């Protein structure tokens, strides 16, 4: 499974990059299966660390999305409304979900390697 090293991860399976873009991990999209709906927040929403900012639904389950930072929603990927499957196809690219103007990072964000270990893949090449 792919966990790029140019971003940080949460224990709840989100990623955030240096531009404040947020999405869900390869592990999360695989566990969810076919994503068919994404509930996006409004631009301008203020989020605290750990706030629920949206929902991803697959055929088989619903998953809340948690903010990895304190910040304001600067942009949402509204193309996901018509193409929720992009989250499965390209979770780190065109499957990004929101972009935040970060005010404060969570203290417990994980590196790619730490996240990989958490999801039980152990050490290994990315």
């Amino acid at each position, binding site marked *: 499974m792919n966990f790029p090293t140019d971003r940080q991860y949460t224990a709840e399976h989100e990623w955030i990059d240096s531009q404040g873009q947020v999405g869900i991990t390869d592990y999360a999209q695989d566990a969810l*299966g*076919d994503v*068919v*709906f994404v509930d996006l927040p409004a631009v301008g929403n203020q989020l605290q660390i750990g706030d629920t900012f949206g929902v991803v*639904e*697959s*055929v088989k389950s619903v998953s809340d999305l948690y903010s990895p930072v304190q910040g304001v929603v600067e942009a949402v990927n509204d193309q996901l409304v018509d193409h929720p499957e992009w989250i499965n196809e390209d979770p780190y690219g065109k499957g990004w979900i929101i972009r935040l103007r970060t005010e404060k990072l969570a203290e417990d964000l994980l590196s790619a390697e730490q996240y990989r270990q958490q999801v039980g893949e152990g050490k290994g090449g990315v």
Partner: protein
Amino acid sequence: MPLEYTGILDEHHTVRTRMGMFDVSHMGEFLVTGPGAADFVDRVTTNRPGRLEVDQATYAALCQEDGGTLDDLVVYRRAATEFMLVVNAASREHDWAWLNLQRAREGDAVQLADVSDTLALIALQGPQAMALMQALVGPGVAELLRFRFSTTFAMAGRPVLISRTGYTGEDGVEIYTAADDALRVWQALAAREVKPIGLGARDTLRLEAGLPLYGHELARDISPVEAGLTQFIRTRPDQEFIGQPALLRQLRSGPARRLVGLRLEGGAIARAGYPVLDDSATVVGRVTSGSYAPTLRQPVAMVLVAAERADPDTALWVAIRGKPILGRVVALPFYRRRGPRPSGQ
């Protein structure tokens, strides 16, 4: 049976456009035999399997006295005095106890046997299913009408019972084999590049086809009248079965609740248990099953609602994570396959 193999959507479309196979060996099978077998199956089920011809099957419900549903099942008449009841895995133990309780009244005229562990069941479903079955077992299999079955065929050198039935809304068969032969039959299909289908797609396929799932659309507190299964309920009072008086009362006065379809706006999925509201935000029912419908490309749900809110095109809301989402009542099924349908039932 796994939830998915290659992905629920892919598997769903595979069955709708080509074909797929399902290992549904978890289903329970009971044999009812003896000179009283026909009368017995008529007394315990809502339909009239005692009038079936040999090699014919029917769908029915098993009800308790108050008309609540204990299970739904398919009854196969294998001989004049031999029937096979195919029941849900989750209901199997209770059904078995219930049927034995009823059988006690029959004395020696009826024998019951639980053969679930000796039988496997593989369903082959989809528009290409019958052509493949013809190639595998001979052209005669296509002559089976819907809800007819035959024990004259063999697959992979093993005797099988082939039934023109299914749970997907597509044409196809269900293949009963001895448990020991199941792997060979499965491999014979796999060798023809038939893809395996999991529980997830089984659920979206049956939901689109408007087929009930016990524990959702049918339950001890949901009667087959409420679930819209009146064509499987015999109404002549001289053909009494357990629960008939209660069901006839519901039919006469109209049931208080009805099962209907709902097509939802937006993309959020109305899942089982979510409340259903009317225009005035009054709770009028609940979702019994809901999912994304891959063929319709929108979320749909089956909902059990107050009868006065069940007319087609009624606007209803489903509370999804606290937000009311608009839906429109539609007649079931959501999906009906095109092309000629084999008749029979």
